[in-house]
């Protein structure tokens, strides 16, 4: 019920709300006063830019991505990195990747960009990989790295279109090996494109074998899973795992089950700017992730 109220707030008054995912599972609204402090690792998440989209829901997706990039560049303290959780382009074309590469290249912080299904149409990863390969990624494209005492994992779940999302046994075996040596106290942050849990399977907002990844993550004290794909802020908890789907930089989609189908929602321009934007995330030692969704309008 609490989650429903939060979603309503986001949908109708924009993203200008901060919340903390506490161990007790209570979300606390906060004012957006302070910037990022020095004693934490801070990063930014953006998602679903759909460069090449030019329908009524957002006739200028390049402008809204640029506005997001400018806002991130103007943050009082630069994030350790900016992660893009996929659907960088609308239809995987070389021209769209070229434009996206140029626009995202203006970020001051290092960029880590995951593919969405829109970026690998025809199961062809080449246009994506020639522009946005994750640093230190395995040959298959997924990756993990340590930063500020946090273990970060970028999982790809856009390999199988028929069963989207799907991780596959190779990736699950890799994840098991990757997590095995870590103490349970190590904070884990996982990035994916498609939600890792069954958020709304009727619209494909789920990962078929996601529960196998969650089983591997369950033993850790503090896990945060951040995804895109659904173009709206929705939070969820399962044990010690906290999920937060991000807004797009392009256009919103309907809340689960409130429309006949998922897809672009056309709003008046001012309302569009309140429904899209970027997200700042802070992790302080011993605390849960502090996630702030910031709208463009």
């Amino acid at each position, binding site marked *: 019920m609490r989650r429903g109220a939060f979603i309503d707030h986001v949908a109708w008054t924009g993203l200008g709300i901060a919340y903390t995912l506490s161990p007790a599972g209570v979300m606390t609204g906060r004012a957006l006063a302070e910037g990022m402090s020095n004693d934490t690792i801070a990063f930014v998440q953006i998602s679903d830019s759909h460069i090449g989209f030019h329908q009524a*829901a957002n006739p200028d997706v390049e402008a809204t991505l640029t506005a997001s990039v400018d806002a991130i560049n103007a943050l009082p303290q630069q994030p350790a990195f900016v992660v893009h959780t996929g659907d960088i382009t609308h239809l995987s074309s070389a021209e769209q990747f070229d434009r996206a590469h140029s626009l995202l290249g203006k970020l001051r912080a290092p960029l880590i960009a995951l593919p969405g299904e829109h970026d690998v149409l025809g199961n062809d990863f080449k246009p994506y990989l020639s522009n946005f390969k994750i640093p230190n990624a395995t040959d298959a494209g997924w990756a993990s790295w340590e930063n500020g005492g946090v273990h970060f994992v970028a999982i790809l779940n856009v390999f199988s*279109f028929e069963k989207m999302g799907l991780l596959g046994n190779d990736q699950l075996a890799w994840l098991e090996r990757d997590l095995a040596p870590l103490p349970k106290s190590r904070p884990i942050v996982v990035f994916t494109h498609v939600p890792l849990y069954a958020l709304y399977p009727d619209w494909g907002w789920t990962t078929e074998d996601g529960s196998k990844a969650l089983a591997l993550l369950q033993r850790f004290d503090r896990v945060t899973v951040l995804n895109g794909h659904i173009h709206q802020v929705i939070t969820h908890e399962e044990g010690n795992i906290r999920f937060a789907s991000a807004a797009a930089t392009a256009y919103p989609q309907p809340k689960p089950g409130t429309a006949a189908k998922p897809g672009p929602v056309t709003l008046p321009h001012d309302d569009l700017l309140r429904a899209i934007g970027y997200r700042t995330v802070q992790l302080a030692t011993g605390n849960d992730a502090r996630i702030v969704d910031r709208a463009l309008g």
Partner: protein
Amino acid sequence: MKTFMFLAAAILATAALGNAATSATAVHIKDDAYNPATLTVHAGDIVLFVNDDDDAHTVTARDGSFDSKGLDTHQSWQHTFTKPGSYAYFCELHPFMKGTIIVKAVTQ
């Protein structure tokens, strides 16, 4: 430029209607659905897939025998079905969208 290409494809498909050996039929994509969801044609027929929706879609065969790649709003794509059989297809971007083309042998 793309508009011209798709216009040309539509004209070609229309032109094919005049050929006694083939006929063209269309599947329209609207509201995350293929209409009609099941279409029966004869071997050699051309099927035109038209995206009338406000979102991008694909027409992708489950057996890998055809793939439109991404079809933006107002774009269309055509495929000639030469072998009799039942061809199930789906949308890579919305896997819950399903369609079938049934291709019947041409009787002499």
